[in-house]
């Protein structure tokens, strides 16, 4: 045990919900040495966040923590009182949470948050606090630390905020850093830089406990991985070893569901379960033509901002077109233009050779272009049951059942409220509704980004099946290159409203022509990285 900064044996965490006790963590062992990174990987509900909270003694009211041994930061914290914990938190162990916008106090300057940590543990004298805060921000690679310390969280970009949060967690130089989904809300290029920062801390000797749902992120940083399922560690081992040859079936399933771990086009969630049905005659040729489309918005400062700028492409029947970009790239505006929810300022969109943009609503044949939104629940009228939702799209009862079969949902779900369904089931309902008017095109805006990987895999497989069976053209909009790479035939890479690169997915990914595409692909974490050597530094 000597030299271990974190040594946990038989950790149990339970939550009391009403009168019942729900176990979240059931007997977990963890060990972590200086300069080492252990990743705890699991899907939502696996208990990974409960572990993070237990390591800082903040599981909250209504919870109970039991452990045979609980050593954090080299100090025995088993059964510590809150007063005792306070000397451990920040000083022996730091915590970094997901989404720094809500994890930093929105009404206080960033510097005040870091200074609070400095003062709590009397790291330096009162007068040296400001200098220490600047130093910490600089260490976290925040440019212009002087200025940033005076700014509020909403004034910083997502990446800077996350770095400031790491600076606050490191303020008292704790030997252990617990990072709970530190990069989840970030764009892929920013994500890479935050991971680099954590790697630098690790190199300086900090022990990092990385909590994530994403095996690809883990591959980049972790030395060892513990796979958590239902509050139990089902498999643990050396990262490269575990990713190359997973032994537990759950690990295998999780890894199989990760698109970047795979040959393109391979089924992710196992053999298909939905019946194949072929529509005849299948359409062929060009379905939609987009030529020189632009859309300008006025921002709060009344400055015109080109959300979509001179975008042109064609969409063929039975094709999956991926649209990739980071937040603010204009990909959602493009979706709204395709759906006819927005009119382009210039350029035109045609459907089967007839104009689609710029025509009165009554002349549009709405059923031809359908939509699957990121948040399925928000796209359902809260008063409606599943059957009524699909009937609103023009289906009768028999057709509702047929559609439910098609998306792999049990017919008995027709009488349920969507709020009582799981995230994956809701997205299937949304897809069933989109299929109801037998559309030629389905626009899917981030359809899987809110889902766990295993569920995401099933939905991606469903898209492939729909394309194969019905010949429907699908526009798949995603920030996730792995997803697009896996299912799309062609891809548009968008940045600041412009298409910087387009082409066959295989070609674009193999030989990206534009520097931005190269950067995106370089920043993409892949499980293979763990055993194919560390990726080259991102430019």
């Amino acid at each position, binding site marked *: 045990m000597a030299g271990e900064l974190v040594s946990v044996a038989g950790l149990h965490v339970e939550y009391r919900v009403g009168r019942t006790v729900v176990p979240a963590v059931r007997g977990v062992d963890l060990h972590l040495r200086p300069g080492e990174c252990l990743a705890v990987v699991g899907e939502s509900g696996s208990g990974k966040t409960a572990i993070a909270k237990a390591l800082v003694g903040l599981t909250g009211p209504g919870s109970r923590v039991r452990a045979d041994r609980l050593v954090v930061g080299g100090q025995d914290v088993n059964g510590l009182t809150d007063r005792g914990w306070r000397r451990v938190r920040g000083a022996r162990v730091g915590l970094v949470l997901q989404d720094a916008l809500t994890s930093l106090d929105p009404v206080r300057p960033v510097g005040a948050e870091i200074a609070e940590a400095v003062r709590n543990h009397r790291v330096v004298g009162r007068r040296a606090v400001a200098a220490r805060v600047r130093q910490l921000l600089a260490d976290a690679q925040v440019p212009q630390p002087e200025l940033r310390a005076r700014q509020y969280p909403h004034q910083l970009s997502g990446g800077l905020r996350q770095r400031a949060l790491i600076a606050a967690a490191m303020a008292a130089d704790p030997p252990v850093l617990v990072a709970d989904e530190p990069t989840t809300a970030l764009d892929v290029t920013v994500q890479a830089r935050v991971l680099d920062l954590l790697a630098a801390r690790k190199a300086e000797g900090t022990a990092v406990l990385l909590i994530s749902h994403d095996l690809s992120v883990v591959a980049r940083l972790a030395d060892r991985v513990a796979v958590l399922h239902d509050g139990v560690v089902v498999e643990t081992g050396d990262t490269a070893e575990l990713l190359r040859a997973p032994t537990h079936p759950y690990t295998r399933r999780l890894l199989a569901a990760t698109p970047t771990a795979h040959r393109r086009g391979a089924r992710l969630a196992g053999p298909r379960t939905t019946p194949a049905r072929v529509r005849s005659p299948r359409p062929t040729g060009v379905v939609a033509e987009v030529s020189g489309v632009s859309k300008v918005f006025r921002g709060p400062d009344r400055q015109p901002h080109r959300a979509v700028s001179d975008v042109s492409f064609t969409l063929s029947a039975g094709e999956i077109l991926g649209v990739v970009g980071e937040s603010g790239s204009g990909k959602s505006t493009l979706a709204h233009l395709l*759906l*006819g929810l927005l009119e382009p300022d210039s350029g035109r969109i045609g459907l089967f050779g007839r104009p689609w943009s710029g025509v009165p609503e009554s002349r549009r044949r709405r*059923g031809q272009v359908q939509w699957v939104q990121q948040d399925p629940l928000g796209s*359902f009228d809260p008063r409606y049951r599943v059957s009524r939702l699909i009937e*609103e799209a*023009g289906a009768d009862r028999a057709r509702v059942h047929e559609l439910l079969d098609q998306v792999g949902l049990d017919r008995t779900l027709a009488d349920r409220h969507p709020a009582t369904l799981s995230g994956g089931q809701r997205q299937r309902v949304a897809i069933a509704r989109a299929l109801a008017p037998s559309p030629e095109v389905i626009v899917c805006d981030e359809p899987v980004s809110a889902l766990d990987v295993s569920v995401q895999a099933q939905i991606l497989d469903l898209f492939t099946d729909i394309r194969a069976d019905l010949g429907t053209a699908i526009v798949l909009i995603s920030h996730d290159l792995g997803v697009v790479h896996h299912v799309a035939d062609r891809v548009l890479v968008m940045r600041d409203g412009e298409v910087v690169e387009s082409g066959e997915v295989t070609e674009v990914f193999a030989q990206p022509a534009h520097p931005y595409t190269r950067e995106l692909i370089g920043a993409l974490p892949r499980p293979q990285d763990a055993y194919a050597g560390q990726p080259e530094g991102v430019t």
Partner: protein
Amino acid sequence: MTTLLTPVAATLPRARPALIAAWAVLGLLALAALWPDLLATAPPDAVDPASALAPIGPDHPFGADQLGRDVYSRVVHGARLSLLIGLGATTIAVSVGALLGVLAATAGRTADEVLMRITDVLLAFPGLLLALLVIAVLGPGPVNTTIALGLAAVPGYVRLSRGQALVVRESGYVRAAVVLGRSRAAIFFRHVLPNALPPVLVFATVDIGTALMASTSLSFLGLGPQPPTPEWGSMLAEGRDYLDSAWGLTVFPGLVVTVAVIACYVVGAHLRARFEGRTPGGR
């Protein structure tokens, strides 16, 4: 700026016994308002000089006033006017406010701009000042009090229902309906109205209590129903001259107002909580 008569009261007790008690109180008040003779022991204006300022006793459970009228019976008979004013004022406020609010949200930019600027101006006034101004014009009396309190609360409901309608209009499901090719009218009647109005109505249940309290305040000031009509606020005002000798004259009418308002708040808060629990995201 104010949006509503009553600030959110979401932390009110929601225990089952409290809720049952609140409904029981409302039931009793409704009974008193509809058939006061079932509960009262004497006519509200039966003068009896012999028992003037009589203390609390078996004959007069709440005592008797300076003219010997039974306070308990007057309190029972007072329920009708107080409840009518509270309910009437809230009905005026909700119906006019919701109509204008939904109109503002859907009728286009110019109408919205004009309506909301007027609402902003009116919202800058406290409700009671508006009500007093209306009474200054129309004169005192129960009907005018109802109109005054109702009109004073309209701007808050315009803002609330417009906000609700806008949230629904921008929601994913309304956009989904557009993509499905539903007509504007179908979207308005099937999605916007049914989803925007219920929260407004639920908010209104809490405001009935506030309107009740405000109406008794106006009566207390002599601006509501005039004596000898039994009304809780004016009874309390009359009883003030006898604070030394007969405290029942002021304590009981005020107590009834408080209990009635509590009942409205508890039931309203419960309805609101149930309603918010039903809609997604409100859990």
